[in-house]
């Protein structure tokens, strides 16, 4: 539909990447990357949550449904969780989810899980650049985006 997120002055494919991050570590780490003026790829849109423990696999599913080509989930390193254990629970949840996604045929390379602390601005930049490169090479996730085609279906007028 819209080509927002694509680098419009350039015709090559630019992936849309959604990042779900915790506010205490990774969001602050991304702030630090900003304060340090670390130049990075512009494809990532951050959604800030209190803790990785709050990040639901549904968010990732919905992001893919809404046109994301890749997703990053990032939070505090083990033992560093502001809430002591949210990241441990998230780690278990995403262990299952990642395997399940892989089993269903979603290329695991579209998903990045990372621990980025508030002091790891450089690591955040690396995660962003690396994920962008990887997903750019994989190409658009049209297989997922075309699953319902509700809007297109209506516009094209073909039902059944």
């Amino acid at each position, binding site marked *: *539909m819209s080509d927002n997120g694509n680098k419009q002055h350039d015709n090559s494919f630019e992936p849309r990447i959604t990042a779900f991050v915790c506010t205490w570590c990774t969001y602050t780490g991304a702030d630090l990357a900003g304060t340090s003026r670390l130049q990075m790829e512009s494809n990532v849109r951050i959604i800030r949550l209190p803790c990785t423990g709050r990040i639901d696999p549904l968010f990732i599913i919905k992001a893919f449904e*809404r*046109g994301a080509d890749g997703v990053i989930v990032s939070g505090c390193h083990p033992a560093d969780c502001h809430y002591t254990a949210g990241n441990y629970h998230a780690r278990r949840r995403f262990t299952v989810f990642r395997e399940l996604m892989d089993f269903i045929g979603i290329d695991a390379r579209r998903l990045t899980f990372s621990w980025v602390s508030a002091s790891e601005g450089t690591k955040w930049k690396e995660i962003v650049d690396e994920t962008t490169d990887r997903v750019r090479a994989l190409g658009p996730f049209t297989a997922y985006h075309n699953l*319902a085609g*509700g*809007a297109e*279906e*209506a*516009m094209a*007028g073909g*039902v*059944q």
Partner: protein
Amino acid sequence: MTVKTLTTENLSHLAAALLADGTEVIAPVKDSSGKVDYRAVKQAAELALGEALPRKSLKEFFLPQTECLFYFKQVKNDVELTPVPTTFGPRIVLGAKPCDAAAVDILDRVFDWDYHDELWFGRRQATTIVTLACPMVDEFCFCTAVDIEPATRQGADMVIVPVAGGYHVETVTEKGEALVTKYAKYFSDGGKQAEADTFRAEAKAKVEKNLGINTKDVRAWLETHFEDGLWHELAWRCHGCGACAAVCPTCHCFDIVDESEGVNQGTRRRNWDTCQAGKFTLHASGHNPRGEQCNRCRQRVSHKFMIYPERFGVLLCTGCGRCVRACPGGMVLPEVLRRVNAAAQAAKTEPVTEGVGQ
């Protein structure tokens, strides 16, 4: 009514010709695991006529399990709507079960009741249904008990009956006539009426053994047994899933949802729904008039054998038996009907009507 004969070979040629002319051909098709479904075919060889009963009925070709009604988009403070077309390209169903065609005819009534459903009738108009007379699927067939015959003409534009070497052909409607006219070269003149009649009679006799009830008495009993132990007894076993409704050729309830497709845009869709689901009648207030499964079990039987006939004069059941075969809890509709019928007969002689439940 025109009577013709169609050889097995020519049926295949007819399908090929229809496909070549750009007509969508829907027919029973077997998948790799041997299950049969109605599906649009790409070539005549896929046809699996006279095989097992397709898992789902024909209704999805007129009322798809999900369909877009329109597309909406909010622009500044306005909403733009893009409607969906209500006219469709030509389509033919080859080898439908007669009961499935009858179901479509039954449903025509409700879709032209308080509102004339353009999408239903758009598809109806575009579709020619050729049914294949049925020899009975198994002991859970009970079409004859609900006023339908195994080779009924109801809902069909053309009926074909298996005879030696091919099919005896009878046109029923103008659409059926048009088909015979347009593709005349595949049809030979004259039918095999006697052979066809025998087929019909034998099939009918077989199905009649499965269940014999008086539907009027059943309806009368239902009218006076809104509260009855039977409904509770059914609800013990019933899981409240919608498997029966999904495979039922006549269950036609739907849900209308607005599905988001991004910021301030989306589609309004119509999806299959079922009265067996607890959330089906849940009010926004939190109240649920059919809050318990016993209410919902009653609803399904009542709608089919009391409410629909009351309103439209026909039963909302074709006796195909799909609900029996699909039920994970072992619910058996003919068994329920048999018990209700027995109670209704008993009530005729006894002044006080007893419930049939424990």
